[in-house]
């Protein structure tokens, strides 16, 4: 099958790969580039575990063709911590016991990041809405919601 070149920025680093046409971004990230932080839970766009941020928008990498991402700025959970220092969201997920099996966690944090980037002081309803495309089958939703609200509070205190 014909291979196509793709180039994009992943968590600040430039990446270039030859991939088979039709390869999803999820497969390209995990199997070609080696960023396994996005997870494949359904491969049909229903569970949210594969969520990544493309040019500031929350996207399902299992439904995104890698070849459509040329020139894009892609962010994943693997890029949240900087120089070994956890991102405030990561800190809050730890402190609020917002992880159980952990499989939905990277997708949840991507959804939360997009929310907080746009809405620094979200209401509880805003958080629920923002996470509504991400399934946690351990059903630990409440601590996850609390972790996002905790991050927002910490951010606003730091800003004050």
């Amino acid at each position, binding site marked *: 099958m014909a291979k196509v070149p793709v180039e994009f920025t992943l968590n600040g680093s430039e990446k270039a790969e030859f991939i088979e046409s039709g390869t999803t971004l999820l497969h390209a990230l*995990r*199997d070609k580039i*080696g*960023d*396994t*932080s*996005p*997870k*494949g*839970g*359904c*491969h*049909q766009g*229903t*569970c949210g*575990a594969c969520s990544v941020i493309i040019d500031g928008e929350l996207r399902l990498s299992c439904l995104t063709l890698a070849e459509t991402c040329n020139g894009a700025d892609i962010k*994943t*959970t*693997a890029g*949240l*911590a900087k120089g070994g220092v*956890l991102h405030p*969201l*990561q800190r809050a*997920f*730890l402190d609020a*016991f917002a*992880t159980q*099996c*952990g*499989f*939905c*966690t*990277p997708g949840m*944090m991507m959804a939360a990041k997009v929310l907080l980037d746009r809405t620094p002081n979200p209401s509880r309803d805003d958080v629920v809405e923002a996470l509504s495309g991400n*399934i*946690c*089958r*351990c059903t630990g939703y409440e601590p996850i919601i609390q972790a996002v609200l905790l991050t927002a509070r910490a951010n606003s205190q730091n800003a004050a």
Partner: protein
Amino acid sequence: MEMRKDYFADVRQDGLHEIGQARPRLDSPGHVTGKTAYFADRNFPGMLHLKMVRSPHHHARIRSIDTSEADKHPGVVRVLTAKDVPHNVYTILILIQVGPEDETVLADGKVRWKGEAVVAVLAETERAAQEGAAKVKVDYEFLPAVFDMEEALKPGAPLVNEYHGQNYYLYDSGECRKVRFGDVDAGFAQADHILEQSYQSSPIEHAPTETTGCVVAPEGNDRFTCYTNTQAMFFTLDNTSIILQMPGSKLHFVGGTVGGGFGGKVDVIVEPIAILGAKLTGRPVSFVYTREEEMQISSPRAAEMVVIKDGVMKDGRIVARKVTGYTDAGAYSRHSPYGTQKGAAHYPGPYTIPNVWIDTYCVYTNRTPSSAMRGFGVTIGDFALEVQMDKLARLIGMDPLEFRFINAYRDGDMKAHRQPTEGAALIECMQEASRVANWPVAGKYMAMSSYKKGA
């Protein structure tokens, strides 16, 4: 949360270092950074992908299997059928002497449920494996199927599983697991009221976010490393050793990281065939359920039917309980004979009843094999029992919580399955529930204790 210190004040220890403290979870830093390694995060050069040809029929004889077109399909490396599996007929609980072996790794001569694995196709890509699987031709002769437990137990019902010879699991106690305690007929004769009700449940799928699967790598020293999300590491290792007739020293299982299991990952399903594929091709193998397979193929919680007959006195005492429980194992045993047995011990619930008669049946039908899920064997029973308790309380015009105080088990009470009660805390839990839920009960119940001396 408030820690109540007045319950069990004489035995409680307050010098505890862990209970009541918030401790960071050791696995969380990996989860929040995306560094936790799930089995599917392992990727090896030259890794093959395994896809399964599955039965489209609930019950059928296999006349023939033709894999010639699949063998020739571009990218297909190897096609496996029953004859390739060294010890093809197995059962998980054989490790604790619960037999007979009754399930095939790959179907041999017959399929017993819709979705049963028949042929395994190993290919260079997932797509080639899928296409190869679609080219396998299986000639089936339909057999009558049975989907209902009561129908399956009737004389003349289609025989689901020849390894059992009848459509129920044969316990050492006979066609069902039995508990006999006191004289249940005398109890019913003495009762002011008798209430018989039946309760039913459907199968329930765990639907973990991470689907069932494993990745196998052949090592240079003739061993196989299997990265798996099994919830039952050593069951899987030992059963794989039996199925592949391979000493355990050749198998290195790496796991413990499970993207949601809830009991749905305790069966030994993907690992033996993936390791066999790696052995026969000399290449790494990935076998991962699709979401559809996870929902349709992986074992659900069993469907159950429970018939409860209780004799109760006007003063609130339950004097007799007779329970007949049916667990739908589907076509194969997996963990259901164990769950069914657990139900037999459990059916009196946390109540002391002097006369008890329990029969629980593990029934085979042509449905998806059921297995473990969170408290399997007792969870549906608890639903039935507590609804029954509410109905009994209503029948005699008593408050449902007070009714439970009257019947609650306490330390020293003998349970129907001959385990003396110790460490009971039901009364104290109900007292606290009464306070917290603002559901007041009479003072004499608030003064009760799980210790009989405090009664």
